[in-house]
């Protein structure tokens, strides 16, 4: 059976000279201990893992470990500079809350625009429109320009669109807390529903209870490398011990990178061609 996600010796490199924003540059500088050559920084290196169908992977790690970069690569937003990844099936990332909104357009137009950005066929989007509108619970506002919305309404519409299409592979960056208490409960129930329906899940979270409860594998990212992999309980324990040292102001011992996360040995017999997306 083919894996839902297959990642091999993945490397993503940032060119620091081209990154213009000072804030971004600073955040990289903190991480740039493993910098290779002048002006380059590997956000991810030698990351390998597989997620078989029906399984869910928790990605944990300190800030700036490369967790979000990993999700961006899996979503196809970033291209690997090294290695290969393969994702089988329709991917949906709940990274997309309200990202494509155009303030001048109505809620209805924005639903269609967001669907077009995500590459969802027009017919599908039209069919899902009533469900999206109902879930977002915007009433008459659905035909008003987005700029008249409150931030809560904006988030609700974004969430409804992002979760409208059941994906085969679900990428989650943090468990979402949007809107008021009622909507938060409703949206969490929806996330759990999607997680149950998805063939595979990658969940990036700082909430260890979600990692334990919903995932059957976990990897710990530090400095762009996988440094621990296995059962969520064990990996979470390693992470928490190391976080404890950091909180106390210390620097935990550097763990050796694990090139293969141990889900299954990586066979090098296949060429890169078989793995390109």
């Amino acid at each position: 059976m083919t894996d839902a996600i297959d990642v091999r010796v993945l490397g993503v490199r940032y060119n620091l000279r081209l990154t213009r924003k000072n804030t971004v540059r600073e955040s990289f500088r903190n991480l740039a201990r493993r910098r290779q050559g002048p002006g380059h920084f590997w956000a991810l290196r030698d990351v390998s893992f597989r997620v078989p169908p029906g399984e869910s992977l928790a990605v944990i790690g300190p800030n700036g470990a490369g967790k979000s970069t990993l999700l961006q690569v899996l979503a196809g937003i970033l291209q690997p500079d090294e290695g290969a990844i393969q994702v089988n099936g329709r991917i949906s990332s709940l990274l997309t809350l309200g990202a494509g909104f155009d303030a001048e357009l109505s809620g209805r137009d924005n639903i269609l625009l967001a669907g077009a950005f995500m590459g969802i066929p027009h017919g599908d989007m039209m069919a899902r429109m009533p469900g999206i509108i109902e879930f977002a619970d915007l009433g008459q506002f659905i035909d008003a320009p987005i700029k008249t919305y409150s931030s809560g309404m904006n988030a609700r519409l974004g969430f409804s669109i992002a979760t409208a299409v059941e994906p085969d592979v679900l990428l989650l960056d943090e468990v979402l807390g949007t809107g008021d208490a009622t909507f938060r409960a409703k949206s969490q129930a929806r996330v759990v529903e999607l997680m149950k329906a998805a063939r595979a899940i990658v969940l990036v979270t700082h909430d260890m209870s979600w990692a334990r409860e919903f995932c059957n594998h976990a990897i710990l990212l530090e400095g762009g490398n996988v440094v621990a992999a296995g059962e969520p309980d064990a990996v979470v324990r390693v992470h928490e011990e190391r976080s404890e040292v950091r909180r106390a102001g210390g620097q935990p011992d550097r763990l050796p990178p694990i090139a293969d996360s141990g889900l299954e040995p990586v066979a090098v017999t296949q060429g890169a061609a078989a793995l390109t997306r």
Partner: protein
Amino acid sequence: MTQTNEAIRDAYRPVRPGFLQTLRDTAGEISTRRRLILYLVRADLKKRGADTVLGNVWWILDPLLTMLVYVLLISIILKTEIDAYPLFVFCAILPWKWFSSSVADAVTCITTRERIIKQVNFPKVVLPMAAATGGVASFTFGLIPLLAMLVLLYRDHVSVWVLALPAVALVQFVFTLAVALLAAAITVFYRDVGNVANHVLRIWFYLSPALYGAEQVADLTKSQPAIGTLYHLNPFATLFESYRDLIYVGQAPDWTALGLVLLASLALLVVAVLIFRRLEPAFAKVI
């Protein structure tokens, strides 16, 4: 350990698609995402009309008012001997509005969509494509006052050649798209392009036969071969003269010159697509 890692890395080294594959991929992306391009163009048009009392009437008024400025300046103050100057200058203002607004949109189209580029995977080529296409709409609306002027004021200039306008517009579209792709991709890495673009566009307009015709500069281009060559290398020299042939003079355009501009524009478009595709993976990292 590191040696085996290096071997594994080599086994999965990403391969870049070839030259023809890149062109084919881009064409495929544009055709599968044509609805997205349509939405983007429509959103842009809606925005331009929104919040103004006259709304879409501005699309018609805008080129007319620009024409008025040049008529005042050149026809009334400088007393040019060009006959029917309003129509003469309008033939150049209309296509230029399309080109300059498309390039101005293209310059910002990637950088202003930072959030969605970092969060959704979609072919970025749709953004400059939408910028180049958006100008077509304003060009089309501008044809309304043009035809009105022809029928009401300059009936003796009307000829069947007006019907050949789409052929010249097609050549312009290819050229505009190529410039839009280049402008969009390069601005991501050098934001300075945005500042320079306005000035380059303005100089380009004045150096093209928009306010004057080829006849007015004939002495200069003949006596100074270097200037003459440069003048004819400007695609807008041919494009403006072609538009003018069809609308103002009522004769066939110089098909050979137009064909050469088309060929050069197609070549530029291929280069632009290749450069854009080469830089595209870095957009999400750099913006």
